[in-house]
């Protein structure tokens, strides 16, 4: 469903998504992401985990997925969360939602 790459050197979890992140997919993805993050937290409780959502291949997001983003930025902290490689239309969606800064979207 998504590709998760963990870099042990800088404690960064990259979550690569693709296509249409609609409500159904968000429901499926949430436990996956949750598991990935929880595992890292448990394994390295003394280290701050960085989470990156890579949107290079994402072309649509629903409010369900935006809520997921907000959930995880709260969980890992604003300075440890970012969304990268969004296309301009996705960027504008987050801009309109007023969340581009909070989610460190680029």
């Amino acid at each position, binding site marked *: 469903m998504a590709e998760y790459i963990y870099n042990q050197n800088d404690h960064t979890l990259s979550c690569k998504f693709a296509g249409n992140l609609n409500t159904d997919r968000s429901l499926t993805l949430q436990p996956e992401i949750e598991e990935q993050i929880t595992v890292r937290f448990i394994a390295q409780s003394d280290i701050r985990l960085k989470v990156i959502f890579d949107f290079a291949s994402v072309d649509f997001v629903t409010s369900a997925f935006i809520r997921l983003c907000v959930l995880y930025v709260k969980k890992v902290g604003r300075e440890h969360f970012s969304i990268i490689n*969004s*296309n*301009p239309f996705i960027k*504008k969606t987050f801009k309109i939602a007023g969340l581009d800064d909070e989610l460190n979207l680029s």
Partner: protein
Amino acid sequence: MKNYKEIADEIIRNAVISGAVFSQFDQEQTDAIVKKVFEAGFNSRIKLAKMAAEETGLGVWQHKVIKNVVGTYLVYESIKNEKTAGVIAVDHNTGMVEIAQPIGPVFGIIPVTNPTSTVMFKILITLKSRNPIIISPPRKAPNCCGEAVRICYEAAIAAGAPEDCIQILPETNRDLTHEFMVHPKTALILATGGTGLVHAAYSSGNPALGVGPGNVPVFIDKSADIPFAVESIISSKTFDNGTICASEQAIVCEKAIAAPLVSELEKQGCYYLSDEQIEKLEKVVFNKEKGTMSGDIVGKSVDFIASLAGISVPAGTKILIAPQKNIGKDFPLSQEILAPILAFYKASNYHSAIKLCIDLNYLGGIGHTACIYANDEKRILDYSKLMNAGRVLVNTPSAQGAVGGIYNNLHTSLTLGCGSGGKNITTENVSAHHLINIQRVCRRTKNEKWFAFDEMKFFDDSLSTDQIISDYNKNY
């Protein structure tokens, strides 16, 4: 000595009476007045331009002449055939008749950057809609503004307009302006100015059409004709030393065309600043306490600004180009600067470039204007969809393009609607048709479907929506 409330009461009472008299005028009488006022304003275009440049110390008087031409002749051309009095439309199929009614006293606030052209523009569209107008002159330009009002008023009266159809505040200060904004008899505020002023207009409780700042990104696509784009941008950004809020604020391009673009900018008289020079420039063009551009450099020439900043630039430099690393409050030159200074962004690819434009657009310029130079239709449309701008100008100098009538068929206007993003009710260029109430006379015509349908079915919970809709639309 009258207090501000008493001054406002008296002026507005006069305006209300004037408006009542004006409401009796027909289209022909109204148009005759508007024509005479346009002619008087147009005939005074040079005198008023020189007065404005001298009194404010801003801009270039020759360019202010052009602004006065736009504010009189082009505005007149755009409104002269509009129906704004009495019956303005009849739909013979539906029997619907539209009648234009004047709205009442308009309170027009004038910016120091256009102290005569905006006056004449606001007077023309207000008279065209048979409304009286009260002008609030800019604090730094009471004389030229007052002279424009006098010229227009005398012409209006000579053409038969009602007494007090144009009035001007005896002085300009925030408290007096406030009295007019919140006065219960003020019908509409036409506010052009800074963010605080526009916000005050919208908070007054009276209807307002307010236009605040812009932050116009201009994207130069790889499909653009670079020499043409540069020439066009220079003609816009140097116009009246950049005092038009629709003028370009930042050039954005892809890395692939950055070198030839910079080379062309330099070839055509722009000066590319070093990091050290940018640091010096930021200190004089931006007021950190207020978080906005410094009034000291608005509408000033490159020579003046460079000298103020302690920067040495080649003689004849037209625009200072300031390469920027990012956008936001920490990068003052990424914000609106009404002077011949342009931020410059080099993006790694097309998507990054467009995303920079989105950020610039949302940094204080939402709803205003955006600009693109390209010959790729898909990119032009994609860019347009992504900008939150009332006007997206294509291969056009944005200062002259946004006001309409020169480079496109936008309504000629010196008040540019910025839509909900700019807290406006419209994204259009504001004109006479925004200053009338349209009454719709609706004659009885029967909706046959409604009367043929058994309305008791609406109360039957056992029927599905499809069944009800199907019955309702049954064509016997």
